[in-house]
């Protein structure tokens, strides 16, 4: 099964990328015009809203992406 990442323009602000997880939560990123990015996680009761939007610095985003994408050391 392919994952469908939705790309939504936010005029004047930037772009939102998100995907619906199997558990029914929306997870994604708001990429701002000025280069800032925020990790967003939707609320359980109301998928339209977000319970968290965490500003990520570039190196933090890279580090997180690496953990998510690679086989990190699971034994530690």
């Amino acid at each position, binding site marked *: 099964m392919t994952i469908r990442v939705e790309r*939504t*323009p*936010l*005029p*004047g*602000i930037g772009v*939102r990328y*998100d995907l619906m997880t199997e558990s029914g939560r*929306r997870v*994604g990123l*708001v990429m701002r*015009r*000025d280069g800032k990015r*925020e990790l*967003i996680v*939707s609320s359980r009761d*109301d*998928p*339209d*809203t*977000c319970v*968290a*939007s965490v500003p990520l610095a570039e190196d933090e985003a890279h580090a997180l992406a690496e953990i998510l994408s690679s086989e990190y050391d699971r034994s530690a």
Partner: protein
Amino acid sequence: MHGAELLIELGAVIFALALARRFAGRLGISPITLYLLAGLAFGRGGPLEVEAAEGFITVSAEIGVMLLLLMLGLEYSADELLGNLRAAAPAGAIDAVLNALPGFIFGLMLGWGLVAAVALAGITWISSSGVIARVLNDLGRLGNRETPTVLSVLVIEDLAMAFYLPLLVALLSGQALGAGALSLGIAVLAVVVVLYVATRRSRAISKLVQTDDPEALLLSVLGLTILVAGLAQSLQVSAAIGAFLVGIAISGSVAHRAAAVLSPLRDLTAAIFFLSFGMATDLKKIPPVLLIALALAALTMATKVLTGYLAARRAGIASAGRWRAGFTLVARGEFSIVIAGLVAASALDVPQLVPLATAYVLITVILGPVLARIPDTRWFRSRLVNAVRNRNLDARLP
């Protein structure tokens, strides 16, 4: 001696703006509010009347409007303006009917005549992109699903202004029907041509001001903007729209860098613009129009909530998100002041309109960010849950 007086007044005014900005930040309200209030204090009939610096303030305020509109244009690419036009057009139409019409009818009912009614329609129609963008940011709603709907309403309004402002300018100039129609035709043609060229040939226009030197970039964009705005003005199209079109035409990385170098200058001149508008309002003329302003604000805040609710429903947003979209859109601000400023500068003799606009904007801009928080309160959410439960119960009854 005049020189010293000018400097002292100007320094005091700018320092007062700084205090207003810091105070607004501490209170968490829009600085527009306090700039307008400061203007009332420094203006005619106010306790701290400014005289020597008035010339400088007037010119800075004019540049402030141009820079506000230029930056608005720089924020949007032409693709963004036109891209979601088809999808967002119904929401834009609902918005125009629900919010411009009450202002128009109020204007007619007050016996102010057609032109003032058209101006009041614009004042109640347009939400404040600046205030709302900040509210969305402060409340952490950028990732919400209703947010693109809110933003697309703002985009459509800004685009509609490109046609509305020239119409208002033509009406205000009181030209004969033929000449008025001609300048309106020129305006519409200019807007359409710029939008067309900006979507197809934005690189060529951006090249005109392209330079790596930030100082040269600042001077070229500023010079080009004021020049185009002046030309637009001389054609009886509004100067503000000239500046807006320059902003739309410049795109890509040049636009981002231009916005960065121009934003301090915009902050200064836009603050002076709001101040200057407050200064032009006679403080003593506000109490007589206060009740009208409250009634108009109550009505058009309700219609704005309805607008956002309906627009979000069209976009398939659930009940809570619809209310969030509605309450977020309430604040009016910069465009209402720009419109009232055009009226103030014209020969139109409706002395109550400017004080009404000032009071109206103050009310909505103060309440807007407060109301935007309502859908997040526990009280509102529990009421919403109960409403849904009751509806479900009703549906089950025979």
